[in-house]
């Protein structure tokens, strides 16, 4: 049902209907933003990346064939954008590698206000390389298969499997 509604909006949006596109994107915005938040741990960066994803989706909507879910397509675009952003940041500031990745100040404040606490595994997980974090998150939280993740990241499914395995082994040792 949801897929059908999406598909009808996509068809309208492909003919240049801005209203249909905004409606389509709004339906999936929360899902996208929450995914990006888990990667970036920063609300502002997540919102910026979500906006970039929207524009990329808009540009490439004609190439969406509807073989998979729209949300999966959107997530794959946002993952690529996130990886590009990291590469850019690394080029600009090499010291960024040495920084610990933690929740943004705003999120930390909100979490404290709500009395939330984070496990040690969460801290360790966020120190892993991004090409390891992304497949673990996609597989173990969103339930995507290795094959789907491979397609999203443009790598073979075997590589995805080994990255997930490496990541989990490192979490166990830390």
């Amino acid at each position, binding site marked *: 049902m949801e897929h059908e509604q999406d598909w009808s909006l996509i068809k309208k949006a492909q003919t240049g209907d*801005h*209203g249909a*596109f*905004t*409606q389509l*994107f*709004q339906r999936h*915005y*929360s899902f996208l*933003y*929450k995914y990006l*938040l*888990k990667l970036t*741990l920063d*609300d502002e960066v997540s*919102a910026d990346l*979500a*906006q970039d994803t*929207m*524009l990329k989706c*808009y*540009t*490439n909507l004609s*190439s*969406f*064939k509807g*073989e*998979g879910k729209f949300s*999966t*397509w959107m997530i*794959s*675009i946002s993952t*690529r954008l996130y990886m590009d952003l990291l590469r850019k940041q690394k080029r600009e500031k090499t010291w960024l590698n040495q920084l610990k990745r933690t929740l943004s100040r705003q*999120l930390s404040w*909100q*979490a404290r206000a*709500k009395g*939330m606490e*984070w*496990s040690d*595994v*969460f801290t360790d*997980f966020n120190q892993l390389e991004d090409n390891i974090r992304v497949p*673990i*998150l996609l597989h*173990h*939280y969103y339930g995507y298969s290795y094959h789907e993740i491979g*397609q*999203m990241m*443009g790598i073979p499914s075997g590589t995805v499997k080994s990255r997930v395995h490496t990541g*989990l082994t490192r*979490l*166990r040792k830390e």
Partner: protein
Amino acid sequence: MKQNEEQVHMKKLQQDWKQLDELAENPSVSTIEMKQQLEVYQEKQKQRFYKELIIFFLTAVCMLSFFVISFVQAPLLFIIVEICAIIIGPIVFYVLVKRKKKEGKVLL
């Protein structure tokens, strides 16, 4: 033993990710804001298109002039350039197709 430990870790992680979802609550973006962003983006794309078109025409005119001059003034140079193009052309084409295929995978 190892698997048990992994499962415990995953459960903790999933709990933390759920907490992050709760922190985000119900994020939304306004329709007006989105439409404005799309309009600005379209305008930028249009400007970019015209810029590229001008560059394309200028490059084409330069190349054409070069080929005509070399054909009339130095035929040997013309033949050398043509041979190089025959060799390099397919390589560039192969690289571009390969890159396009890689990008295509992301767009499912």
